[in-house]
């Protein structure tokens, strides 16, 4: 197990109209990227609950990508603006708590930016690989393991 190369688990929260479509374009353009990232689709970045980021870390995610439409391009006019405020405050709170915000990539990827999506994923994967597994948060989530491991 120890000899295995660290393959980070990364979950991406993306909006349906821009980044999800952008990732579709990456596919249709056959641009390759690392398979570590798995996409969860949302109607809009405005829908992404901050609790989901914590849940992802708790379930063992080593990194998170949050991505949606560029400012002014939101399918719903302003969902991404609301999301941006939410991330500005949430990110600062996490940082204050000692939760590694360097493991969260926030980005705007439009439906036309298939190449940007691939680059974003690859950058995130290599950055997380350098950081190593994120265990701080997962450990408190799996607090019981210490007690039950001996079984």
């Amino acid at each position, binding site marked *: 197990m120890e000899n295995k190369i660290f393959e980070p688990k990364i979950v991406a929260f993306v909006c349906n109209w821009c980044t999800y479509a952008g990732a579709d374009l990456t596919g249709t353009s056959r641009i390759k990227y690392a398979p570590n990232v798995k996409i969860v689709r949302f109607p809009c970045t405005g829908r992404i609950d901050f609790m989901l980021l914590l*849940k992802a870390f708790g379930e063992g995610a080593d990194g998170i990508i949050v991505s949606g439409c560029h400012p002014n391009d939101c399918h719903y006019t302003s969902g991404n603006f609301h999301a941006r405020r939410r991330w500005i*405050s949430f990110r600062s709170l996490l940082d204050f708590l000692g939760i590694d915000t360097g493991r969260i990539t926030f980005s705007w990827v439009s439906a036309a930016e298939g190449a940007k999506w691939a680059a974003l994923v690859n950058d995130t994967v290599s950055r997380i690989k350098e950081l190593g597994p994120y265990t701080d948060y997962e450990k408190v989530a799996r607090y019981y393991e210490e007690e039950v491991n001996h079984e």
Partner: protein
Amino acid sequence: MNEYQTIAAGLLSSGTAAMVIGYSEGSAKRVRPVFFTRPEEASTLVFDSRCVQNIAVYLTKKEIRTEGKIAIIASLPVMRSIIQLASEHQLSEEKIIVIGITPSGEVKQFNGFDALDAYVSSTTIEIEARYREKIEQVEKMTLTERWNFWKNELSACFKCYACRAACPMCYCTRCTVEMNQPQWIPVPSHTLGNFEWHIMRAMHLAGRCVDCNACAEACPLGIPFNLLTKQMILQFKKDFGGYNPSLKGLNILSSYLPDDKENFIQ
């Protein structure tokens, strides 16, 4: 009788108010909230620096019911809470008389929320120096030190929810921690459950917290989770240019500016 006692007694004897909420002497040199309906009780009212419990919390409780108006002895944080609650459609102007006592000790009776709003808007929420220093101390730590600091502090929490109960802004009838489909926040008071509870609490108070400190005062374990909301207020002042409850403004997280600044979105 002093000024606020006289006003309170007057409101009750004239029938203008049906109940007065204020503070009186409690046990062991503490003060406690009181609710009275008879003018003669007004002489037991006290107001001093010990009155840190935010009694605006009672205004939204279904247990506090009267047919008539409620008069409330309101410190500045209580006044702020009333404005914030009013902006969230939780209080009706016709039911409340505010006997405000300003930080300088001036007694001000407010007719209507607009007048109260004008007064509250003329003040600003400033984080006390001792908390600012503590926040800076935490901010100066390395990421790991910060994590360990909070892990140590928050793991002590046994989730009595006194912080929630003491907060006038936590008036939801079903708190998200009580939601079990899905179970967002683990119920047990283990470190994860505590982290998620306090993170969520801070986020839900974002732009709503009036910095009264009642939550921290209520905590039987002295956990400094109030630093989270205080840090947030400092951050909001920086990021969104100001922070004050008001009937006119919009909540920070349910509004936005097209040119909000950030430096982390790629």
